[in-house]
Structures are given as structure tokens and as C-alpha cells.
């Protein structure tokens, strides 16, 4: 590998975000064409099956990733699955997704009365909720995952307990949704 290809490999190794060829060229203070050549060389070196690393193009940039073949071993070595207690924001968000699923992100925000991005993000990252498509307006729609049912010891979503403090009239799900939205609107006005 030539010096520039080595340098590109170093830079991609150190960066945990995708890096564009332009950014690589600027960092190495060379012409873009040279970087493109170097990337091609590196790409050939890291072709699947050759090394433990692979070169991926993600969102217009380049990123090094580990070979998926090693995932099981990596999990054994590194994975310390975390199941920390849920924060109130996470519990509320998860409850909304669990009881109303599928539910779009703006609806979660309306019910909680606050933007719920960070809670949705951490629940997705932990694999408790997952995207189930997009709404007509392009908003992500969420549902709970199979992992959710296992970590809550639920035999299916129907096994969720009745919401506590909820009056016992046999309200249907639609009514819960409306009541949640109504309460949420009052919250965001307050």
C-alpha cells in the first residue's frame, strides 16, 4: 500500500463517523484525485473476505467497519448488554409505543407534551422499539420489538396490564388514544 492509502486507512480507523473523500484530501493536503486512487487501492485491500475490516460507503462518506463474520465473537468479547432502569421519560415513551402501537413520533411528543427525541433514540438504540415504516407525512412510526416482550416478560402485547389509575369502564383503545392526546394538549399548554 502506498503512503497515501496507508494514511487514508489510518484516518478512517480513527474516525467513528463517515468521512468524505474531500475531507480526507484536505486532511492529507493532497488533490482529491489522489485520494480517490488511494481509496480505490484501500477498497481492493479490504475487499470482503480479505481482512478483518471492510470499507463501507455510508451517507456519502467512507467508514471502516468490522467484518460481520466476527459479530458472534465480538459479542462474546465486548458486549456488556445494558439494561439500566428506565427513566421516567423512557418509561412514558415506551408505554405510549407499547399501548398505542404503531404510533408516529409526533404523536408521542403531543401526548407527552414535550419533544421525545432523546427517549425515542435511546429506546431504539437499546432495541426496545423499532421503526415500522413512515407516516403519510414522513414521520417515523414505532412499534415495540420482540426484545421488548422478552425483557418485560410479556407473552405478546395483549398481555400488557391495564393502565393503572385508568377508570375501569371498558374503554376501547381508540378512546385511550384520544384521552391521552387531550391530556397531552393540556400539558403542553400549561
Amino acid at each position, binding site marked *: 500500500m502506498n503512503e497515501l492509502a496507508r494514511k487514508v486507512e489510518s484516518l478512517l480507523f480513527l474516525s467513528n463517523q463517515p468521512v468524505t473523500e474531500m475531507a480526507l484530501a484536505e486532511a492529507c493536503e493532497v488533490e482529491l484525485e489522489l485520494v480517490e486512487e488511494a481509496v480505490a487501492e484501500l477498497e481492493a485491500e479490504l475487499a470482503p473476505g480479505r481482512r478483518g475490516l471492510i470499507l463501507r460507503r455510508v451517507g456519502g462518506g467512507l467508514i471502516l467497519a468490522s467484518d460481520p463474520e466476527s459479530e458472534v465473537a*465480538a459479542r462474546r468479547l465486548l458486549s456488556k448488554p445494558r*439494561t439500566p432502569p428506565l427513566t421516567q421519560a423512557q418509561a412514558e415513551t415506551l*408505554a405510549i409505543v407499547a399501548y398505542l402501537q404503531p404510533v408516529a413520533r409526533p404523536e408521542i411528543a403531543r401526548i407527552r407534551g414535550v419533544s421525545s427525541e432523546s427517549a425515542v433514540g435511546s429506546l431504539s438504540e*437499546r432495541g426496545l422499539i423499532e421503526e415500522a415504516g413512515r407516516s403519510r407525512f414522513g414521520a417515523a412510526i414505532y412499534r415495540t420489538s420482540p426484545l421488548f416482550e422478552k425483557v418485560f416478560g410479556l407473552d405478546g402485547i395483549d398481555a400488557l396490564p391495564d*393502565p393503572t*389509575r*385508568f377508570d375501569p369502564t371498558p374503554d376501547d383503545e381508540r378512546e385511550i388514544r384520544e384521552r391521552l392526546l387531550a391530556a397531552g394538549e393540556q400539558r403542553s399548554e400549561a
Partner: protein
Amino acid sequence: MATRLDLDLDLDLDVFIGPFDLLLSIVLREEISLLEVELGEIVALYVTRLEEQGELELEVATEFLVLVAALLELKSRLMLPGAEDDLSEMEPAEAVEELVARMLEYRRYRDAGRELKDHFESQRGFLYRSAPLPPELRRVEVETAEKVYEPEQLAAALGDLLEPPPRPDLSHMRATVSLRRRLSAVRSVLMSRPVFDFDDEFGSEDRMTQAVTIFALLDLYKKGEADWEQSESCGPITVRRSQAGQAGLAQTA
């Protein structure tokens, strides 16, 4: 490391005037007792000299300070009651040995430090990756996952969300009282009774309403619609419809 021990410092103390290293030899030969030497003054002089040379970085130990610190320790041992017997017998040679040992010990770490510093520089080109694990490795695997959360937590959270929020507490906000309304309130009383006692009519209102009512009275007085009097401070206020006010009141009505 070929750095010579630097002990150059001119002293001007009660017991001694001259260079520090001379004082040191004299002390070590026990011609002056260490107890009589003001070590604090020596340090102060040394620090002043460093400052004059623009080198004042107190964290930088120098052999000079190591030596003074060792002397200070010897001196404090001399000053300890009871310990004196042992130490008064300390031969000057022993004190010298102790000082030499301390100086050599310091040199050892000074030199090791220099080497570490160079080594640090030589290693700084190696950079390590610090990236979080990919999300799939941070997650619990479905197959091996066990129950860790209570579903009741979700039921409770949803219950909280179903509860409409409590009515906002507005007690900290001041209710507004309209001067216009108070004007018409006073006028309507004056219509039915030409003379009245303020407290009888408005004493049951809250303080804010009473205050605005007084403003209304002032306004009516200015307009010539009403007179009022209070014979003593904080006493009863008598309000009286004025002659000139008759016409106005009639119009308003």
C-alpha cells in the same frame, strides 16, 4: 546528567551573612546549630532570586529546595521533645549522609522523569481508536434476554399520561381590577344614596378592589361628582354626592 548542584545564594540572616553553601558546611560541622538557622528566610530569599531571574515556577523542584526541605526535616526532628537525645548525638557525618542520600534520591527521579518525558514525546504519534461499539453489539440479544423490567411500570406511566394535568396555580398572579367598573360601582351607589360610608359599601371587597375604588373616588372628586372626607387617619371615610355631580350622574344614568 551533568548538571552541577547549584547552591549559589547569598544570605543575610541574623546568625550568618554569606553564601548558602558556606552556611551549609558550617552547620554540617556543627559550628552553628541548625536550630538557630531561619530556613524560612532562606527559602524566601531563594524564591526572590528565582523571581528576579523570571523562573518562578514553584512546582519545579530544584536540588536547592530538596536540600532545604531535608534540612527542615532534620531541624524539625531536633525540635521534637524527647527526640533530642537521639539526635544531639547524631554525628555531623550522619547528617551529611542523610542529606547526600536525599539529593541522590531526588536526582534519580529527576533523571527518570526526563526519560519519561522523552518517551512520552516519542509515543505521541500513535493514536488509538475511541469509538462506541456498533449498536447491534450494545444490545441484549433476543435469544438470551431475560425479564428485567416490570410491565406495571408501563401501566403506571400510561396512567400518569392519562391524568389531565392539575389546573395551573394562578394564585401568584394578580387579578386585575378595572377602574372603569369601580367608577360605575361608586356612581351607582351615589345614585341611590347621596351620602354613604366607604366601609359599609366596600369594606367586604378585597384590598386590591378597595384600593382601585379609592382611585375611582379620586377621579370622581376631580370631575366634581363626589366629595369625601376622613376626619382621622385610618378612620371611616364618608362619601358625599356633590351638587355639581347631580347633572353628570343623571347623564351617566
